């Protein structure tokens, strides 16, 4: 009896220590961090290292041995006119679409921040394109912009803007606009779909920013004698600038790295006129099989993304300090 009782007493501190080992921050911290670390290393770190290694080698789908060839892949990429078109398109699509989005999102957010009947429904509808999977949304546009059955063409025909004698000029005399068949119209279509896709998120972000402006500040501007335009341009937009930067940075990332729109809508055509870096890397590296080439092309996205990430972190840090 007494012996076992003593043994219990001796065992007590031990179990206590064992049971509470997770309470120690030096243990708990690493344990909780581990999943994130594994995730980042496995899904971001290793692919990035692989991409760099591939880009410096002659690896292909058929021959996966990595033989280093220096900067040959980058030289080849820069020599190709398709690559240069893709590089230019990537920047043009991103910059132009985000400029349009910024203007439209500001107007839309201002309108939606007003109080009116059915506001919730309208907000929901505005956000809808964002909730649709990109591929499905773009498929919808693929059909909408169809060379023969496009409903847009139908409408244009009905109002007389398409067909022989169109006031828009002889380019519009055909029975169909062939939105995806002419380089300029295909580029316009891609740009348009990007705007359609990124506008909702930007609007919602700006809307949140607008509602975050204190009512008192708006009231003060009102009492201080500011008219509508002064209130918008001297108070609201300046106060929205940081949040606008966030919206634009998101838009840049989504547009800059996107290949779905181009892949589904035009497959980079006609004659590579809508090719972007992401799609070109895919066509070269995966469909064409030269992984090294594809990796080199994709790595051109890297500096811009690093820059965007740095800016986002700066904004986040500034938001913390205010």
């Amino acid at each position, binding site marked *: 009896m007494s012996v076992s009782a003593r043994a219990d007493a001796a065992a007590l501190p031990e179990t206590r220590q064992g049971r509470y080992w997770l309470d120690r921050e030096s243990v708990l911290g690493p344990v909780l961090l581990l999943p994130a670390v594994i995730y980042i290393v496995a899904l971001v770190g290793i692919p990035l290292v692989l991409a760099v290694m591939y880009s410096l080698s002659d690896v292909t789908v058929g021959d996966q041995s990595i033989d280093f060839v220096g900067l040959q892949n980058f030289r080849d990429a820069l020599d190709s006119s398709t690559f240069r078109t893709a590089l230019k398109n990537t920047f043009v699509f991103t910059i132009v679409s985000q400029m349009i989005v910024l203007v439209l999102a500001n107007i839309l957010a201002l309108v939606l921040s007003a109080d009116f009947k059915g506001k919730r429904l309208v907000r929901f509808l505005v956000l809808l394109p964002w909730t649709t999977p990109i591929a499905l949304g773009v498929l919808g546009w693929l059909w909408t912009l169809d060379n023969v059955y496009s409903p847009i063409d139908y409408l244009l025909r009905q109002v007389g803007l398409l067909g022989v004698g169109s006031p828009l000029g002889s380019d519009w005399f055909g029975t169909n606009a062939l939105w995806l068949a002419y380089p300029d119209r295909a580029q316009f279509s891609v740009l348009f779909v990007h705007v359609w896709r990124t506008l909702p998120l930007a609007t919602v972000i700006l809307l949140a920013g607008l509602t975050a402006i*204190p009512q*008192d*500040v708006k*009231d*003060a*501007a*009102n*009492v*201080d*004698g*500011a*008219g509508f335009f*002064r209130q918008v341009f*001297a*108070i609201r937009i*300046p*106060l929205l*600038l940081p949040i606008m930067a966030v919206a634009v940075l998101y838009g840049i990332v989504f547009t800059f790295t996107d290949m779905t729109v181009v892949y589904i809508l035009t497959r980079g055509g006609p004659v590579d006129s809508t090719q972007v870096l992401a799609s070109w890397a895919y066509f070269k590296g995966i469909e064409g099989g030269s992984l090294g080439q594809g990796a080199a092309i994709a790595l051109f996205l890297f500096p811009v993304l690093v820059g965007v990430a740095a800016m986002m972190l700066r904004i986040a840090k500034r938001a913390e300090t*205010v």
Partner: protein
Amino acid sequence: MAVVEVRELSKRFDGVAAVDGIDLASTDGEFLVLLGPSGCGKTTLLRMIGGLEPPTDGDILIGGRVVTNLPPRARQIAMVFQSYALYPHMTVYNNIAFPLKAAKLPKAEQTRRVAWAAGILGIEGFLDRKPRQLSGGQRQRVALARALVREPTVFLLDEPLSNLDAQRRASARDELQGFQRRVGTTTIYVTHDQVEAMGMGDRIAVMEQGRIRQVGTPHEIYDEPADTFVATFLGSPPMNLIPDAASGELLGFRPEHFIPWEAGMGNDWVRFPYHVHRTEYLGAERLLYGEVGEAKAVARFPANSDINTEIGSTTDYAVRRNDLKRFHPETGLRLDRPTNGRQP
């Protein structure tokens, strides 16, 4: 400078009256305080005068002109908000200059006026700073400068001191009143703090549930309350209310007027048996808590007075007849006063 007047002014939100048919007029250059508990409609009334809230009914006149349907910028008013509502992205200079820019004044005139307003409030030193780099008191002065700079006919102040700490608030009261006296602009000041109201107001309008209970000087409000609400809202602790078995009325008296019978005496004193069951020492004063009959009553003395009533005992206490106020037991209205509270 101007007279502000509201006539039969009402504001209903979804059928609920926040402001319920108020008639009120300031005098020229007056410091008029709207005092009441939260939700009494005082801020709504102020916002209607400022044009930030459209009234459901009634009229607002500033300087004799009906402004009921005019936007704020057409009213020649300036407002200071509880949060100060400074423009966070602008420097102090640009904050103060904002109303002048909106009024499209020439640049040179803007500079001159900003310097003048900043001088009056002693904030010339930080015109280049952003609001977030300022202390609460400095922000408040910037907000006042922004209100002052346009030389408005009326100042509307919405609890401008409530974001200051207690110590700073006392000196801010002093500064604010001095400032108002210097510029002489009609001022309407909203607060729920009776100390601010008593200390600064030329007159106080006590509000409750969207209506004005009494308008008067701090003296009138405190010494001659129009009803039991005003009597118990002002004063800390509030006025004692004792039902009088003989007349059926409510008798009201201030805790500081309630003293032991021996200390008072004389035939203009009214005697009450007072049962004391607790005492509080508050440094400068001493409070006795107890009952007269069934009703609770508080007595207040300076801490250094030698009055010493034993806890648990019942002693005779007395109030001078002049300090007894009589109220109707149901309506709460004052019975022994020719004008029943409401004043023009």
